[in-house]
């Protein structure tokens, strides 16, 4: 029920021509169309010449901070924000 079903979207904004998109934050929206509009209201307040990307948080593949260590398998984790990470018991090294 309620917005438990509104997925999380990550928002990337290019403030000006010549710059690249920068991560601005996240928001909840039911779909991509609404996510884009909400992002516009929230992160740009309608500045001219701005480009916005919205990406479902679940679609983002992130590198693990441990990747530089050769003794651990590089872990391509699913989510930028990974809720279950912090419930892993001590001693388990891979996710």
């Amino acid at each position, binding site marked *: *029920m*309620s*917005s*438990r*079903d*509104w997925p*999380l979207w990550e928002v990337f904004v290019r403030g000006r021509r010549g710059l690249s998109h920068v991560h601005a*934050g*996240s*928001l*909840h929206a*039911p*779909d*991509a*169309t*609404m*996510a*884009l509009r909400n992002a516009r209201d*929230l992160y740009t307040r309608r500045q001219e010449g701005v480009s916005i990307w919205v990406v479902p948080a679940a679609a983002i593949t*992130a590198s*693990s*901070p*441990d990747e530089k*260590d050769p*003794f*651990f398998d590089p872990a391509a*984790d699913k989510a*930028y*924000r*990974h*809720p*279950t*990470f*912090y419930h892993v018991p*001590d*001693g388990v*090294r891979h996710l």
Partner: protein
Amino acid sequence: MGPRIDPVGEPEGREHEFHAVIDADGRIEPRDWMPEAYRKTLVRQIAQHAHSEIIGMQPEGNWITRAPSLKRKAILMAKVQDEAGHGLYLYSAAETLGVGRDELLDLLHSGRQKYSSIFNYPTLTWADMGAIGWLVDGAAITNQVPLCRCSYGPYARAMVRICKEESFHQRQGFEILLTLARGTAEQKAMAQDALDRWWYPSLAMFGPPDAESPNSERSMRWGIKRFSNDELRQKFVDMTVPQAEVLGLTVPDPDLRWDEERGHYDFTSPDWEEFWRVIGGDGPCNEQRMAHRVGAHAEGAWVREAATAYAAKHAGRQVGAA
């Protein structure tokens, strides 16, 4: 549990790395290892900050339809809109720690997480809009600027964005009071009355005295808190008293005086019994704020469900530009 392969991989190694980052004034990011207590403390602090922003929309929203000039109406609407935005930035930061917004809203609605107790007081006159901007936002800014350097990356970045947007909030509050103080006798009395009611609750915003804040020290070690409650409160008083003099209004503290030796103002503490009572639920507006918040959420459920249903029906057709 296998043999130790590499110290960096072990919990002890990770904890060492965590503290090294903090001690070097670096940033902990969402995917980094962190002590569970650090994560829990942050979730609570960030979430309660977010809750404060959205509950804070109510006392100020109370005066949008009655603003006495169109310019003031526009400024107030923009300010309250900013507060919604700040709440959103903060929920977004909290979510990077593995808790969803719905869960946080449940914690707010059930009373298990709190919001800043300052919003349990009523906004009775237009001058309250001035007092809130000047004192409440002033206190918030005093608190928030150090948080821009907090150890947790997403929180620090949210605070930078918030502080940038907040710069006009305090100024416009002061300007409202200045206009009143220089206006008619009734307007000046209105401004003084607002200061009388909001002064002590604003001082209480910095939290209980250091001696009664057991978790402060740990938060400071983790780089979540940069200054103690009393330090921030003193800083706020020192900044604000001269501003009251510019306004020509009297701070409601007969024992307020400049201490040349200390280089600070001596001032009367807020009534801490009142503080604890109000936080505990016995304030003028606690029930009203919660009922309003819970009510808005409940009344909106059918709207949120509709949007979810529509998205499910039309999934797969929304690729590319929207």
